[in-house]
């Protein structure tokens, strides 16, 4: 996937089918033009902090939303979230957990690390599309971010 000029949504998802369903749900609401999809926690960290393959990225540009899966190869979602929240320049980026897990410990941990929202991926496709679209719509179009 090519990197859009101005990434507004960073989608961190290792399951290609979940990713396709997510992108499709976003596309339906015309929110998919500026999505970057990365496949593990390490790639997410590299992009967010302009490291590795993304070393040349302009870090002044911040995404409006990170859609973060919990269970990811290499570096898991909680660790990505933790790193985002410990660095001054990434501290305020809205992060929404989008995960299969409804385990209480995962929800509590995510909130403890400062997640903005926690969404359990519905198994039903209509509900799933609706949840993704709502989250995208809210954070991109409704929410007022600090200037």
């Amino acid at each position, binding site marked *: 996937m090519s990197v859009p000029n101005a990434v507004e949504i960073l989608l961190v998802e290792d*399951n290609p089918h979940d990713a396709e369903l997510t992108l499709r749900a976003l596309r339906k609401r015309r929110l998919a033009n500026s999505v970057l999809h990365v496949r593990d926690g390490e790639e997410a960290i590299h992009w967010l902090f302009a490291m590795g393959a993304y070393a040349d990225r302009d870090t002044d540009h911040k995404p409006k939303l990170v859609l973060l899966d919990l*269970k990811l190869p290499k570096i898991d979602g909680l660790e990505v979230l933790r790193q985002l929240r410990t660095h001054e320049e990434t501290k305020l980026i809205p992060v929404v957990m989008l995960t299969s897990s409804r385990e209480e410990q995962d929800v509590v941990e995510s909130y403890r690390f400062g997640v903005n929202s926690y969404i359990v991926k519905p198994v039903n*496709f209509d509900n799933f599309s609706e949840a993704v679209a709502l989250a995208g719509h809210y954070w991109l179009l409704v929410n007022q971010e600090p200037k």
Partner: protein
Amino acid sequence: MEADENPPFSEGQYQLLFERNPLPMWVYDPATLRFLTVNKAAIRHYGYSRKEFLGMTIKDIRPAEDVPALLADVQANQSTPTVTSVWRHRKKDGTLIDVEITSHEFQFGEHKTKLVLAKDITEQLRAEAQVCQLNEDLEGRVSERTAELTAVNKELEAFSYSVSHDLRAPLRAIIGYSQLVLEDYAARLDTEGQRLLGVIAAEALRMSQLIDDLLTFSGIGRQRVQMTDVDMTALALSAFQSLISTHLPKAPQLNIKTLPPARGDSAMLRQVFVNLLDNAIKFSRVRKDATIEIGGSCARDQNVYYVKDNGVGFDEKYVTKLFGVFQRLHAEEEFAGTGVGLALVQRIILRHGGKVWAESKLGQGATFYFALPVRKES
């Protein structure tokens, strides 16, 4: 003569008391350590003749390494009237025994001597040591088992964690992609093709429901029961209201009596009412005059609660299957459900130390009971 004093013994009677005493006794001279007299029990127990004894000192019935301690003890306790202590003695045949020695100051003719009573406690000490060993073994085994259980529990937790993560993803794909085909290729699919895809999606959805229910079920087993005082009437009422507001076009008639309060985990007990009432509503929906009754009573050591409906009921032949996981007594097309509801009810009540049972006649409604033990506040 004072009433609490014994009448005096004659010297002969004292002699008899000494000679016939079942415990080994002797008198020795603390200055020379020589035996001055021994009784029959001592001769029998130690194996020396009276003559041999009178030619020996009290050092001679001890292992050599204990003699310094003996000498120190004799020195230290010279003027102590009565002493009890444990020593090792050696019999004539070389056997070592543990003895509890009680020694008294004793006037023997002209001499100030010591009268000694020796009680063989070898067997007693051996038995005590054995009990100690057994206790230690038992503790060892208990902590071993506890460790095993903890490991199994951890494994189970990891298992359900991975189930909750990994098993849902393929189902989401099955349902999602069926939907994509329906959306993108609707024009090229006839009604039968659409129906078939619909079945695939519906079954995947049902499997996801099964997974959810199974996780809830296994979660109840792992969860800690948090005991509080529970207002069962309010709990039952709120459970009923949550059910009729979510999925009922027409609510059944509810007849609720005042229930005895309980001591238990309020969230879990709420789940019990939700599941029982959900069933009651589901199986009485076919009736125009659907009525549900909730009641309870106090017995001596337990409170009994019940949920009664006038629905389709069940055949009591199958009552044993009722509370099993994934057991259903009705066809899926007739009444939806995964068959986990009553299993969950039973599990929760068992975890509270109570029990569940049910009565019914086919076509005449069913009554589900559960009993909770009444705990006295300590």
